């Protein structure tokens, strides 16, 4: 469609169809105040402070909600408009406590700004005001209903974005207020405590409880970084005063989340400033940990590791890298294990979650990661979710899926034995018996085959051995699948119809299907389903595993795996071997190392004698903790590098205090393989150090010198040896990730 002409206060410009007057005004730098507008929400037009005059219109129009029409002439600066805006603000402050001196929102308040602009320090309208609500026992969220201006942003974001529906308007007339079911605590509602309502509130009506009395927003230093929780990789703005995190926000125009956060990202930062943090190295003496200096601890590790190495060989040592640490640290850790220690016994928790994904998708597509980006869900016409409780485990991706369903009319198929939030919005929910995933997917493919809904052209041009698949599928009639899985043939048929015929179908899966003995088969079946219907390689389609930890993708990419170096360059391959020996200046072991599970098995049998665990907690995350305990106890020497005294750390001989995400620089790679910067917001706590610095020091002490001045320097080395990361420099990814 052609561009539209619009004139705003004499400024002429063209905008694309669908733009609002507010968008156009922004483009020419004309400020129009807003209170009920949030770019994350649908136009609402209720506060009336964005009213502008439009030539030919009967009445002033709300700029936030009025779409530009061709030839529109808009005035934003007339006497009438200022009068109307001033009246609205004066009405608002007539029912608003002017307690700016003690209000948390002071300095960051839409109403305060407007009152300032119009010189209103009191209202001529005297009368009833909304009373202060009794402060209830809502966790995380303080609701000050006396300050509420009823712009509805909280109600709408809870509905439109979060699909939580915890709050709504109640009563009528002056009595209207934002309330919960039966006026109870948010605890008794469907509230997820994501705090999205707070993030949208333009005044001090909703405040994050943890930030109370810790400082106003304008007093804080703001640092953009990446959330340390799940693989979504949301952009956070850490607001700090001194070395304390005061609050967490998210910029509206940045990252995969564009202002949205979940309860973890928004409120889960307390651990950073926790007193329980490890602040100094600890050495176990006579069964008790005693504080030590860094040089004591590091020289002890070097001595012990070198001792084990010379007595039993390098393969008697092993290391667990971390999906919570940065790419730089993961790169350095595997380099340390391979170059300084001389073993490929390096692995991390990806082994336990998405190893089957990596294996399955690598076999099917050549690469084991999401085929499409998170933003692509918006373009899907159908989304099939299997083995993923997305709204809980990856809440912001959950939002993307639900918005595609609720706003764009995408069909949703959920295959999950449990009734999860997504099932409420699903067109079809198939509660299969646990373990029958392959049967269900085969059943769907059987129907697609019988009905001829497959994409013959795609199959011929892009796939191999379709006939083999056909043979297998023949046996999986809907009736047989129903018998195996408990899913009705009708549901299978409907799901097959929707998935095969939507035009653009996307598959989302996660650990609900990968953490099985048949995990790889589950993943391969999904890949087959996508390929036979041609739902790969286009917008809105694909096979999309949601990775668990914040940097599990990066830890894999960086080669914290026993069989590959960074960039999945195969251990043992002559070229690879030569390349890394040249780069690292040392002879490298040629045989693939042990996996996480194998390392612990070996340790239990006395094979592996020394273990270096960086930022992992196998006592909690590995199967059979009894077995893990036995293995750890059997070790001659255990080093744990972490931020807390974990269940694993108690078994350590030496504990090294590392840093949290808030205290260091580096990069994380999210589930869609977007490489994003994390930035130091506060100084390290106590004597704790960056993990990469610790690794460098240990390597150097062991006789393999590593000297880096910054994470950037490590990234530069990663660029030089990792083809898939060759161009990813901090400068290039500073703004929105790569």
């Amino acid at each position: 469609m052609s561009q539209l002409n619009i004139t705003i206060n004499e400024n002429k410009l063209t905008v694309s169809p669908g733009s609002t007057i507010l968008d156009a005004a922004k483009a020419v730098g004309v400020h129009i105040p807003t209170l009920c507008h949030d770019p994350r929400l649908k136009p609402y037009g209720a506060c009336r402070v964005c009213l502008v005059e439009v030539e030919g219109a009967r009445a002033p129009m709300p700029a936030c909600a009025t779409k530009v029409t061709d030839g529109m002439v808009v005035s934003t600066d007339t006497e009438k408009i200022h009068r109307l805006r001033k009246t609205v603000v004066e009405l608002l402050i007539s029912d608003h406590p002017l307690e700016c001196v003690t209000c948390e929102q002071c300095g960051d308040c839409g109403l305060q700004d407007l009152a300032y602009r119009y010189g209103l320090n009191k209202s001529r309208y005297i009368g009833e005001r909304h009373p202060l609500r009794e402060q209830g026992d809502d966790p995380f969220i303080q609701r000050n209903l006396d300050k509420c201006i009823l712009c509805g942003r909280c109600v709408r974001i809870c509905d439109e974005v979060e699909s939580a529906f915890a709050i709504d308007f109640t009563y009528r007339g002056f009595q209207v207020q934002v309330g919960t079911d039966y006026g109870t605590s948010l605890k008794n509602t469907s509230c997820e405590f994501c705090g999205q309502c707070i993030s949208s509130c333009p005044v001090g009506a909703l405040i994050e409880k943890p930030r109370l009395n810790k400082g106003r927003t304008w007093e804080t230093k703001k640092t953009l970084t990446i959330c340390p929780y799940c693989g979504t990789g949301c952009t956070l703005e850490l607001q700090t005063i001194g070395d304390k995190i005061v609050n967490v926000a998210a910029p509206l125009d940045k990252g995969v989340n564009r202002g949205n956060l979940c309860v973890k990202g928004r409120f889960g930062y307390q651990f950073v400033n926790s007193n329980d943090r490890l602040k100094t190295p600890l050495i176990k003496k006579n069964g008790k940990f005693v504080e030590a200096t860094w040089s004591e601890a590091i020289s002890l590790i070097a001595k012990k590791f070198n001792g084990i190495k010379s007595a039993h060989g390098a393969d008697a040592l092993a290391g667990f890298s971390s999906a919570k640490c940065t790419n730089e640290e993961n790169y350095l850790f595997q380099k340390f294990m391979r170059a300084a220690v001389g073993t490929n016994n390096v692995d991390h928790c990806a082994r336990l979650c998405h190893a089957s994904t990596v294996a399955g998708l690598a076999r099917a597509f050549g690469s084991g990661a999401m085929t499409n980006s998170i933003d692509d869900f918006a373009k899907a016409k159908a989304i099939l979710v299997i083995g993923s409780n997305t709204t809980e485990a990856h809440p912001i991706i959950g939002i993307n899926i639900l918005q595609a369903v609720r706003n764009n009319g995408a069909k949703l198929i959920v295959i999950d034995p449990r009734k999860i939030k997504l099932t409420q919005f699903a067109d079809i929910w198939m509660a299969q018996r646990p373990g029958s995933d392959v049967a269900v997917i085969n059943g769907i493919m059987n129907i697609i085959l019988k009905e001829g809904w497959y994409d013959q052209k795609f199959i011929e041009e892009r796939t191999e051995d379709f006939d083999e698949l056909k043979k297998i599928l023949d046996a999986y009639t809907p009736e047989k699948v129903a018998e195996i899985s408990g899913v009705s043939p009708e549901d299978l048929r409907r799901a097959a119809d929707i998935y095969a015929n939507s035009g653009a179908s996307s598959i989302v899966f996660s650990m609900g299907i990968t953490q099985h003995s048949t995990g790889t088969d589950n993943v391969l079946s999904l890949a087959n389903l996508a390929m036979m219907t041609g739902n790969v390689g286009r917008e809105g389609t694909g096979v999309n595993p949601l990775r668990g930890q914040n940097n599990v993708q990066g830890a894999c990419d960086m080669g914290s795996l026993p069989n590959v170096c960074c960039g999945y360059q195969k251990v043992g391959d002559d070229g690879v071997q030569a390349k890394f020996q040249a780069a690292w200046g040392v002879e490298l072991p040629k045989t693939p190392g042990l996996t996480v599970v194998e390392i612990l098995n070996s340790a239990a049998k006395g094979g592996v004698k020394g273990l270096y665990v960086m930022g992992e907690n196998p006592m909690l995350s590995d199967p059979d903790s009894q077995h893990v305990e036995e293995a750890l106890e059997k070790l001659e020497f255990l080093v744990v590098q972490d931020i807390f005294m974990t269940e694993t750390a108690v078994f350590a001989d030496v504990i090294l205090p590392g840093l949290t995400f808030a205290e260091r620089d580096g990069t994380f790679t999210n589930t869609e393989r977007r490489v994003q910067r994390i930035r130091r917001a506060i100084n390290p706590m106590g004597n704790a150090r960056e993990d990469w610095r610790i690794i460098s020091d240990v390597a150097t002490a062991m006789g393999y010198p590593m000297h880096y001045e910054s994470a950037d320097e490590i990234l530069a080395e990663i660029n030089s040896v990792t083809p898939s990361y060759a161009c990813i420099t901090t400068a290039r990814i500073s703004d929105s990730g790569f």
Partner: protein
Amino acid sequence: MNKKKTNTTNTNTEVIVGLGSCGLAAGAGDVFDALADEMKKNGVDARLKKTGCIGLCYKEVLIDIISDGVKVSYGNVTPAMAARIVKEHLVEGRPVDEWIIFKKDVVSGENTFLKDQKRIVLRKCGLIDPEDIEEAIAKGGYEAIKKVLSENSPDEVVAIVKESGLRGRGGAGFTTGLKWEFTRKAEGDQKYIICNADEGDPGAYMDRSVLESDPHAVLEGMLIAGYAISADQGYIYCRAEYPLAIKRLNIGIEQARAKGLLGKNILGHDFNFDITIKQGAGAFVCGEETALMASIEGKRGMPRLKPPFPVISGLWEKPTCINNVETLANISWIILNGAAEYAAIGTERSKGNKVFALTGKIERSGLVEVPMGITLREIIFDIGGGIKDGGTFKAVQIGGPTGGCLPEDFLDTYVDYDSLTKTGATMGSGGMVILDESTCMVDLAKFFMSFAQSESCGKCVPCRLGTKRMLEILERITQGIASAEELDLLESLAVDVKMSSLCGLGQTAPNPILTTIKYFRDEYLSHIHDKTCPAKVCVDLIDVVINQDLCRQCAVCIKHCPVQAISGARHEYTVIDPDACIGCRMCISVCPWNTIDVDSPKQLIVPAEKYRRPVNKENVAESVRCKADESRGGGA
């Protein structure tokens, strides 16, 4: 014996009782039962029938007796009158002349009331049994849908309605045919027709009356609209406070389904249409079309911005045509009589008839259907019979709670959309409240503002807080504690709220204030400057005083005072404590000797800004006594 028999076996005689809500409220149910009893007792076999409302609300309970096509109407009938009517009129053939209110060729107020009306919407009201589809069919019901299905394409139907010039009767007056055309042309696989039966204006009840008296007119209008815009589903959004209307609609829908007039392949044509009733919970704002649709969808009834207009994206985001009850009730007449016939009625830009609900201080209150372009004077004085009890006309409030008040100077205003809008009032849905000199215009504005405020959905700031602050200023004015500046503030706020509100509710809510300030400014000033309520209405500015010279000390007033504000006892001196008095005037109405009166201004003991005085019985008694002495003027 023979003579009696000939009189009682007149099967050509019908006895029809008006059983609309108004009739039922006046006791029509009991009258119906009493008539049935008496007829049985006397062996009368005339047909006893129910009907809806004929419009003469002030004469309820109404019964019509039609013998051989000659109609005689009785008004204000009570069960006690049943015996005589049955015996004298039905058995003996002598109508009870003294109770007759309407008879052909007899000059009466009721004749005048009905004579000047042109009935299209109400044409079957009060004539048919609304619970029997056969009666509606006998009077031409469903002929129009038959006609369009066999003779007209949907486009032709749209063209006919457009040509008729019919404009929406819900208030805004949008051209109905255009709305149909837009919906017809809108893209969408599913379209809806909604009948807006969320009549909520105080004093307006024409929609209820139509639904109760001739539901089939509305159902048929919806069918035709559905055919014209290619919708197969209709919704009637009717407030739950209209149980009788809902009951009769349900009966009507069931009967229409049974006769194949609703459902699949209607009348054998390739046209499917069905109707669902959605009951509203009574929020006034749900009469606004976008709020109404939200309510049908199960959401909180709050208006949203337009565009998109419902004709493009309405119910469940499908193209939706929303018409009001009265609008739809016109449709079948237009189809059967032709667009030209309809367009010949009314004015250039306001075609056809409009039903008005006359209420307030008017001699003949009720529903009247008149051609557009008639003057207010004709409606109020010719049809309505002027002011009740010989009072003086002060103003007419038109257009519901968000309409305006017009004084005597405007009595010759033509009643059509454009002329009314020019005055600052609106057509609204057709409520007309007649006010006499006993109405305080400030108090009236306060009443309507209180209504608008409590019905505001709260979405936009000007309406939610603006109406509240306007109401509070009005409260202060009626308490005598407002300053002159506050009147200016009120007026400017009213203008701003009108200009900046989101939906029609807020945009029109200030109208009662703006029109009363415009036309009755002096009355505001009296409250503000003189602390006087000229109409002697505002409780804080009046004293209810007992004239001790005339008082017979019967103590009836003491017994009836709901707040025990009157001290004294039988055979004692009685005084009213002005602080306790709530101004309800119960004492005045019960005093057998007419000794109690209302006075304003109140004798202010303390400065106006601290108007409320501390209770001091002795002082109060003294002041009242003094005043009473003064009023005696030296003794009589």
